[in-house]
């Protein structure tokens, strides 16, 4: 006979996702459950064990850990765990431990799968049908108090703004302006909310965003008297107010949408936008970073890296500035290196002598964008013995550089990579190397200067990188000849402006008549800023941060450093938008070659202005840092 388990059924019906199940399904589940008791402090799940159940906490509290022992999540009554193991490979992913005396209900995997098949909301809760890898990535980012445990309703900070479906688009625009929102929900009074007889607005049938006003009204020349329902987007993804923030992220990634209406039983209570989530997560790159650290092989990393362009495009669309995007991309690049080095050390064993893996160039400056080479090197302990230790570091460096290439970071044409023996030097050798570059600047040094003089410790003894930075700052600022050479070097790449302030275009591969925004824009600007930074002994690497130091040091005439900042930001943003547009609209590999006719006259004028600032700044270098100038 099927015995009735009233208490268990009652408990389940009070907790998600069971509360959405029909009563008969809850009763059946209750009658099939297994129960287990765990005393406080005992292990419930051990990493790598087979797992055959979904766990629901009846009483008590459970902590989950990452493999490295870091606390991953803390759950209490009604909390659910084990789903990742069930969805992935039936192995425990996160060890679980009873924090208090804990009674758990166990639902075996056959039953779990059966319920996922039969009850859509149940499956949705676990996203069993979604992109499991992506899901895993998002879930693994979670700490106890962030995306996985936070509910979307906690992100709603204002009342919902709705309009009737027959409101005019002008009214919609006025309302959005007045309420300063970027989206409104459209309701249909003909579709009343069954549970709420007092509600006369009706159910949500669409959404209108800023972009719709632009693309569907202004661009189409639609009358301002047109109705909201003519321009609203109707393919809505509604989110329940109890949904978790990470589910919102998943929905946004999956459907490539930026606004999700939040409802309680079909009644709209607000809209979650991507920027809400980014603000909540404070640093969106954090999402990806945690995912990177969770990957277990180069293949997994390479697969994971494929979402990088989307992350980039998303940040651009959310109006992040170039510093934010550059930082995010650099953090991500750094994390790939760190994870690869972890994996390399797992594979080849611990290093025979301590070392520091350093990033060079744009990544060290936090100015890395989506198209980038890998520039890196290794600082070795002074006890390094080539005959004993070099084989290890060769293997390690090859593993990392090859891995980076698979993740989309192209090999460096200039051979500036740790896999080349000449760029694996001891601390002493590096100091000698920099000392000679500074004292005796040769053409080779000039070539390297823009890459090697931006460096950042990524992994291992990162303080050695700081040590080198200090050394460079100290030696560089007092050496006039060095600064003069760096200044001359910074004037090599001129902005693409002709004598009459028109754009000078180059023929470049398949891109006819384009200009390279990096080589002729952001890179020479960074070069100019670097010279000033070296002159004041700044140890900052990022160009914007260097400019702050330069402003503080009052090195440049009033307003000039600010001009440089604006010019760099403008050119960088044009470059970033160009790349995002290539990824998103053309579905082609992004590059730095811009055809200026794609810009509006207004943008063209601004860009020329920015290039003119670069031109003046380069001229100023000549005057400021001539080798025999007496001007301090």
């Amino acid at each position: 006979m099927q015995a009735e388990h009233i208490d268990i059924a009652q408990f389940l019906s009070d907790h998600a996702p069971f509360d959405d199940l029909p009563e008969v399904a809850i009763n059946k589940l209750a009658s099939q459950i297994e129960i287990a008791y765990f005393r406080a402090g005992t292990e419930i799940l051990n990493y790598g064990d087979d797992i055959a159940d979904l766990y629901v906490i009846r009483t008590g509290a459970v902590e989950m850990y990452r493999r490295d022992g870091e606390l991953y999540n803390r759950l209490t009554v009604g909390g659910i765990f084990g789903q990742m193991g069930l969805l992935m490979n039936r192995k425990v992913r996160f060890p679980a431990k009873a924090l208090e005396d804990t009674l758990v209900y166990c639902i075996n995997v056959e039953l779990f799968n059966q319920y996922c098949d039969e009850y859509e909301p149940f499956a949705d809760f676990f996203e069993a049908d979604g992109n499991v890898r992506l899901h895993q990535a998002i879930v693994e980012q979670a700490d106890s108090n962030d995306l996985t445990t936070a509910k979307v309703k906690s992100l709603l900070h204002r009342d919902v703004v709705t309009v009737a479906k027959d409101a005019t688009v002008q009214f919609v625009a006025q309302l959005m302006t007045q309420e300063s929102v970027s989206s409104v929900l459209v309701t249909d009074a003909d579709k009343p909310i069954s549970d709420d007889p007092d509600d006369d607005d009706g159910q949500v049938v669409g959404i209108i965003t800023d972009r719709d006003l632009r693309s569907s009204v202004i661009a189409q020349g639609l009358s301002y008297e047109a109705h909201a329902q003519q321009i609203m987007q109707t393919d809505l993804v509604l989110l329940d107010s109890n949904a978790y923030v990470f589910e919102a992220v998943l929905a946004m990634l999956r459907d490539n949408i930026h606004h999700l209406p939040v409802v309680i039983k079909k009644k709209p209570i607000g809209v979650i936008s991507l920027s809400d989530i980014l603000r909540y997560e404070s640093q969106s790159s954090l999402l990806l970073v945690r995912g990177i650290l969770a990957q277990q092989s180069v293949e997994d990393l390479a697969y994971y890296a494929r979402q990088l362009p989307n992350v980039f495009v998303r940040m651009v669309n959310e109006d992040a500035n170039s510093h934010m995007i550059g930082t995010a991309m650099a953090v991500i690049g750094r994390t790939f290196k760190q994870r690869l080095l972890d994996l390399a050390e797992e594979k080849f064993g611990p290093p025979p002598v301590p070392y520091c893996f350093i990033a060079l160039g744009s990544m060290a400056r936090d100015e890395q964008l989506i198209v980038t080479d890998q520039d890196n090197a290794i600082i070795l302990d002074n006890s390094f013995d080539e005959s004993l230790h070099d084989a290890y570091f060769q293997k390690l460096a090859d593993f990392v550089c090859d891995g980076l290439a698979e993740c989309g970071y192209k090999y460096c044409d200039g051979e500036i990579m740790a896999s080349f023996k000449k760029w694996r030097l001891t601390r002493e050798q590096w100091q000698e190397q920099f000392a000679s570059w500074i004292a005796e600047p040769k053409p080779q040094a000039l070539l390297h200067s823009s890459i090697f003089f931006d460096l950042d410790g990524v992994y291992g003894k990162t303080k050695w990188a700081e040590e080198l930075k200090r050394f460079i700052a100290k030696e560089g600022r007092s050496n006039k000849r060095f600064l003069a050479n760096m200044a001359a070097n910074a004037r090599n790449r001129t902005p693409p402006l002709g004598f009459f302030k028109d754009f000078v275009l180059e023929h470049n591969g398949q891109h006819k008549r384009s200009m390279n925004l990096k080589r002729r824009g952001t890179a020479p600007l960074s070069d100019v800023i670097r010279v000033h930074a070296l002159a004041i002994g700044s140890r900052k690497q990022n160009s914007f941060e260097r400019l702050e130091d330069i402003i503080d040091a009052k090195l440049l005439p009033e307003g000039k450093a600010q001009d440089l900042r604006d010019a760099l930001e403008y050119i960088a943003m044009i470059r970033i938008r160009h790349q995002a547009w290539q990824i998103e609209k053309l579905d082609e590999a992004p590059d730095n070659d811009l055809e200026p006719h794609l810009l509006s006259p207004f943008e063209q004028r601004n860009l020329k202005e920015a290039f003119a600032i670069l031109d003046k700044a380069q001229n100023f270098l000549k005057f400021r840092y001539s080798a025999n100038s007496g001007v301090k």
Partner: protein
Amino acid sequence: MTSNSAKQNWPARYKALSATSRHPCIQHFYQSAVNDLNLPISEVPLVALDFETTGLNFDKDDIVSVGLVPFTSKRIYCKDSAHWLVQPRQKLDEESIVIHGITHSELTGAPDFSSIIEPLLAALAGKVIVVHFAPIERHFLYQALNARLGEGLEFAVIDTLELERRALKAKQGLLGRLFNSKLGSVRLADSRTRYSLPAYQNHNALNDAIATAELLQAQLAYHYRPDTELSQLWF
């Protein structure tokens, strides 16, 4: 019948009983009984059993419902649980209705105990029976079977009430015993709170059987090692 104080040699007793018993279900129960005294508790198949009765006088009162759930020290298997209502020979008095909420109308149409003998003994066979307060289940089951088959049933039990009393006594210590300090309640609900087990709303034989199973899991987790031998726990 055995008493709490005398330590029964259950393997020997089961052997003797299986030779003299007549009814096939009872015989099967004795023959399949767990009879390894040294079996670690973590390997013992268990079944929690609970009766609701018309009263506490086992000469006069009768069983109205039976709940059971098989389990181990690690898992309780609800899907193999069972719950029967049976017709008592006496009418329910108002007092017992208040206790377990079973009313006359619910028992209308309930079968006589004889119809559940077979599934009940099959569910108990091969497992060690776990109860909270052994005399009730022991005496009522003996009487109910004796009345219908002409022979009763003797069985070893692990009594969670007894284990709780032991645990409280150990905690009380010598001084406590000398000064005769109060031991604390060993009622099922009170015992469960000591292990942070949830308070169940619905009291019926099945819920109480599950509650007893959970209590034993908790007691084992707190007071015993996984390799504690069966002989230490049953009587």
